[in-house]
């Protein structure tokens, strides 16, 4: 029994090691995304629309497809994380997200999202 636990633990360790390497292996894919980012008085208003089916488990079952939805969205600008959201299947189809942060004109806003199985996608846009 103990051996089994040890074996499982080592598998888990290997799995995490593999996970740590994962970003290099599965490079983020660049996608088209509608992004609007406008600065006014030091505050950037950002609006992003991601094209995504956002299939919930229920919907997927009915359609005979696999559930797939965005699980995590981050935005970085000027080398800093400015938006960090963990999301669920209950965001709408083609989810629209709006947020504000302190930033400046000309910086590049990078939106990265992860979907259920771990694939990562990104898009960038200059702040106006």
């Amino acid at each position, binding site marked *: 029994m103990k051996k089994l636990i040890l074996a499982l*633990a080592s*598998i888990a360790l290997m799995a995490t090691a593999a996970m740590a390497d994962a970003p290099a292996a599965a490079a983020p894919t660049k996608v088209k995304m509608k992004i609007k980012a406008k600065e006014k008085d030091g505050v950037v208003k950002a609006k992003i629309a991601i094209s995504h089916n956002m299939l919930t*488990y229920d*919907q997927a079952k009915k359609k005979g497809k696999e559930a797939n939805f965005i699980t995590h969205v981050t935005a970085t600008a000027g080398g800093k994380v*400015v*938006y960090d*959201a963990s999301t669920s299947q*209950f965001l709408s189809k083609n989810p*629209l997200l*709006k947020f504000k942060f302190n930033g400046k004109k000309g910086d590049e806003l990078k939106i990265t999202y992860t979907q259920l199985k771990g694939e990562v996608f990104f898009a960038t846009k200059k702040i106006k």
Partner: protein
Amino acid sequence: MKKSILSLVALAALTMSANATDFRAEKPAAWTTKNVYNGETPTEKGVQAAINALYGDVAPIDGDIKLKAPKVASNGGAIPVSVKTDIPAKSIAVFQDANPEALVAVFNVVDGSVADYSMKIKMKKSGTITAVVEGKDGKLYSTKLSLEVALGGCEG
């Protein structure tokens, strides 16, 4: 078996950078907390259980949170919801009681961002949206909003 899962979760949490927090990896239980129905009517039990799974056994107090959503949503597939607060916040979570599971999204309020978020969500039927703000003072603040959904959004 349980131990290995636990260590896996702990390690996964450790590998996350300090800036970005993946609440899915950190609090997996919160995302699978089911809503509780009393017959067909949604109850608050599921939402409360999800809050406890995410933030621990703390009872939220009413706080100054501006939660906005239409009173009657014609399309349950895309309901605009916005949360805004002046409370110095660590994170903001949005729950509802109309879908199979309670938790919709958790925003990590990073330094240099403004606690003002909008998104579009799905709701299967009429219900209540709950927004919870985890303050920097360690307290939980919450506010609720009931709305009617004319056409459910989860049937696809």
